[in-house]
């Protein structure tokens, strides 16, 4: 924990890294995000948005490796990577991911929930620009093997369906938050890549993922990835009052 006076986030000058077309393996994506967090403790906050080069399964910081069906991942050519952030397994490839690295807030605003809600203002505004009326989820499901199989207060929903999951790590004076915005649905899901006690449990998870989530494409957004990325950036800029004074490329 870290203590200290102010809002849940820092407005003003931020760095922006838009890397939708930059090929990078899953491990490199996580290394780049950790670097943002390390820099943010004493320096500028950064928003990075990116896509995944190929399908990848990220698992939470403390999620047991036993949850993963390694053979199923290999058979589908899915990279597996451990996130520094919390939460559960998440299949990337059809999503636009954002990473926010910023100094830890201080005082009463230094709560996990307050930071989730502050940052959520960005993608909520951005989705609004795309005609999608997203809201911060207000209830909690049981934690499950797959991130998108439950809806929690840190997620964004459209109606009752999850459109964006998020997770954080607070370390060494910085907060790193990941957000995964569902743009397109792949032809397989986390339910095909994780281990379950029975095939019935797998089928139930698959049903939860299908019924409990919604993608931008399913919501009628047919804009290009660049346009979607631009809307998310504009959402962050206007809702959080950010000044993206410098566009940067992250190292690696």
């Amino acid at each position, binding site marked *: 924990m870290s203590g200290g006076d102010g809002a849940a986030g820092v407005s003003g000058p931020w760095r922006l890294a838009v890397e939708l077309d930059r090929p990078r393996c899953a491990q490199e994506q996580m290394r780049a995000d950790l670097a943002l967090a390390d820099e943010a403790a004493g320096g500028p906050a950064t928003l990075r948005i990116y896509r995944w080069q190929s399908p990848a399964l990220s698992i939470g*910081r*403390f999620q047991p490796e036993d949850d993963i069906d390694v053979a199923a991942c290999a058979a589908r050519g899915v990279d597996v990577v451990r996130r520094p952030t919390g939460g559960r397994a998440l299949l990337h490839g059809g999503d636009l991911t954002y990473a926010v690295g910023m100094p830890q807030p201080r005082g009463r605003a230094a*709560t996990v929930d307050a930071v989730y809600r502050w940052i959520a203002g960005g993608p909520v505004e951005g989705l609004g620009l795309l005609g999608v009326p997203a809201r911060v989820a207000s209830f909690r499901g049981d934690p499950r093997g797959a991130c998108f199989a439950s809806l*929690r207060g840190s997620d964004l929903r459209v109606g009752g369906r999850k459109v964006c999951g998020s997770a954080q*790590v*607070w370390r060494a004076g910085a907060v790193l938050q990941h957000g995964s915005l569902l743009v397109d649905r792949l032809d397989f899901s986390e339910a095909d890549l994780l281990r379950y006690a029975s095939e019935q449990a797998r089928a139930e998870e698959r049903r939860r993922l299908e019924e409990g989530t919604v993608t931008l494409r399913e919501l009628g957004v047919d804009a290009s990835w660049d346009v979607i990325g631009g809307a998310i950036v504009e959402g962050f800029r206007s809702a959080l009052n950010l000044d993206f004074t410098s566009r940067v490329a992250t190292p690696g």
Partner: protein
Amino acid sequence: MSTSVPDELRYTKEHEWVRVEGSRATVGITDYAQDALGDIVYVDLPPVGTAVKATESFCEVESTKSVSDVYAPVSGRVDEVNTELADAPERINDSPYGDGWICVVEMSDPGELDALLDAASYRTLVEEQ
């Protein structure tokens, strides 16, 4: 918000507490901290024997998909850990100064306790936030 701050404990500015008995210091996170974190779902406990250094991270906790460092209030060696937290991490939320203790540190430099806050000072810190 009403925050519990027991008089007999010492505190860090990062919201950990210490209960001292001889050279042994029982460590946990404060009521203020558990409230700021939200529902704790996992505690990454340090193994017994781990050397810890004051002000450095020695443990991580996960709450609502968020991972946070816990910092050692004193230096020394971990002598005992609260293994009950492995199956019941919510004890930190329910009883941060009781069943939610994290570990016992055999202190290498009890003089470090002088740098910690007493209850009155910690109470002032959280009331000002």
